[in-house]
């Protein structure tokens, strides 16, 4: 397997009135061809900003301060706007959280779907419409040709997310970034969307980055997982290793927050005691120490690097923690009790 996307030391911050919000703080990861990578972490930990940084889709207040984003060797942070537009949609497709507002209410579905095909693939309007109808059927919307003439408000949320998926996949990108694509949908429809993306992935071989709060989805779809906290990657592992042998206290906390069997849907990962640090005023030591039951003195003086864990079953299993949590007894049964 060869490396498709190689992100190195990415740093993104927002200018605010009193200074900066440090949203992404030196994030490095690789994505291999055809691989599915899940990104998990609490709300506000920088998942979306990281992904938007890859294709420079950030709001005006944001700036990328450092890093490289190598897509098959080309640094996306260096290429010009024209090349960047070719990458967006052409090489990297994206789908977002809220399908209800992701389509332009003024343009019918057919026209909207044809635009990237005309723009990236140089198709004629007629070819693009024909292809769009096929794409609709491919994402499970029957009677595609007739529905091309309809407007977004004539589609339900789940259908609109299918349309978004069809659009982002229409130019056969190498990477599909899905930023919590099911969060806004009903449970039954969530499962359908996950299945759809799996099916499309298996058919087309696209590499997927799937951002989610829902660990049960991670288990079902991902090859590898990245856990983010306060703009850092705190643990990275193949999916089985992460579930069976989590090494960062924060990851352990997330596991503890897994929904119980009769629990409701998509439980948000917020059941770890305490709250994440202020991103405007980050410590220069471990950002998790205020919430960590394993914390030692060193945690308050030095920030741990993301490094391979001891006795790992897989070389790709890395964590950013000074403590080998397997060797420590915590009285209070998991994370969250101390502060």
């Amino acid at each position: 397997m060869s490396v498709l996307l190689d992100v190195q030391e990415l740093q993104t911050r927002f200018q605010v009135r009193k200074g900066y919000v440090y949203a992404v703080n030196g994030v490095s990861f690789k994505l291999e061809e055809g691989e599915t990578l899940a990104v998990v972490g609490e709300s506000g930990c920088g998942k979306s900003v990281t992904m938007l940084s890859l294709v420079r889709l950030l709001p005006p207040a944001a700036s990328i301060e450092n890093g490289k984003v190598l897509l098959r060797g080309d640094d996306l942070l260096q290429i010009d706007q024209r090349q960047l537009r070719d990458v967006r949609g052409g090489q990297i497709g994206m789908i977002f959280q809220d399908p209800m507002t992701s389509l332009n209410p003024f343009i019918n579905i057919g026209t909207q779907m044809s635009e990237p095909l005309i723009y990236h693939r140089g198709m004629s309007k007629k070819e693009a419409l024909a292809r769009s109808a096929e794409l609709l059927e491919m994402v499970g919307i029957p009677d595609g040709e007739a529905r091309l003439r309809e407007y977004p408000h004539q589609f339900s949320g789940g259908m609109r997310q299918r349309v978004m998926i069809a659009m982002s996949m229409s130019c056969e990108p190498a990477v599909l970034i899905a930023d919590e694509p099911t969060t806004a949908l009903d449970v039954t429809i969530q499962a359908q969307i996950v299945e759809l993306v799996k099916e499309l992935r298996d058919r087309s071989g696209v590499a997927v980055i799937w951002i989610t709060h829902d660990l049960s989805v991670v288990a079902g779809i991902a090859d590898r997982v990245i856990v983010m906290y306060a703009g850092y990657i705190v643990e990275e592992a193949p999916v089985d290793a992460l579930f069976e042998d989590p090494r960062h206290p924060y990851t352990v906390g997330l596991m503890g927050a897994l929904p119980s069997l009769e629990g409701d849907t998509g439980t948000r990962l917020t059941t770890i005691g305490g709250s994440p640090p202020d991103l405007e005023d980050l410590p220069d030591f471990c950002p998790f120490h205020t919430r960590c039951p394993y914390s030692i003195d060193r945690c308050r003086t030095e920030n741990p690097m993301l490094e391979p864990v001891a006795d790992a079953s897989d070389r790709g299993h890395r964590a950013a923690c000074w403590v080998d949590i397997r060797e420590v007894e915590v009285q209070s049964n998991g994370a969250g009790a101390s502060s």
Partner: protein
Amino acid sequence: MTTQEITATGDIEIAEASRTNLWRDAVARLAANRLAVVAILPIVLLFFIAAFGPFLTPYDFLAQDFTARLASPSSEHWLGTDELGRDVFSRILYGARTAVSVGLVSTAISLIVGLVMGSLAGYLGGRVDMLVVWLTDMTRSMPALLLAIVINLTLKVPLEAWMEQMYLATKNGFFRQTMWVDLVLVFGALALIQWPGYARLIRGQILSIRSRNYVLAARALGMPTGRILTRYVIPNAMGPLIVAVSAGMGGAMVLESAFSFLGVGVQLPIPSWGKMISDGLRMWQTHPHLLVGPAVMMAVITVSFAWLGDGLNDALNPRQWGG
């Protein structure tokens, strides 16, 4: 519109929707709005009179009846005559032409300027935005009428002198008609006064629309900026813009009458309601018929544009399309 689950087609939900056209829906909603429908009649009538007025008038607008100066309304002169014995009704009909051209031209100019400036400011942000905001603030801080007077006083004489020179140089009859100077000055002043409103509206719309998901999604699909502006941002900004344009048409006509009142309006041989109102005001106590006709027309048209604008806004609002 209902959403139902259909299992036969592979377990996906189908939005059962009326497969009608978006614009037809909007027209239907507009037709359901009583005020808007009421307002359409005078507006259509206005445009009709503006186009065909000269064929409808009982008298020529310049024809003077010296036997009946300042006559009260009668079967001969339905709305009476003015000081020079000209038929008021005929002049009102001709005035529609002035009103419509003032409304259309000045609104078109200020709208184009406002669209360009507002789009640039909203989309590019940064220094361009600061410059445009500063320009609009500057213009808006000056009293409209004062601005018109200053423009008229400073530019009229040099422009007329320039026309004269051009005529001498080219012998082109076009340059002999100083009414063009008047028109340019009035339309210019109106556009100058009105563009900041449109620019600020567009800018605000763009700032709000730019952060919407469908713009992000379009950018993520690699759509070029110009395409996003014309296909995504501007159509979505249309609702409030149409309201503003509709009210602005009425506003431009009222402003023009204020100009006329101050003697910096259109000094055409063709009558303007503003001019008629300002002339009529001088003797409204003795001869109210000179004032009532044009004033009522002006009021009806202004209110109609405002109502129509509101109706259009409701009809075109995407929020009501279940979006």
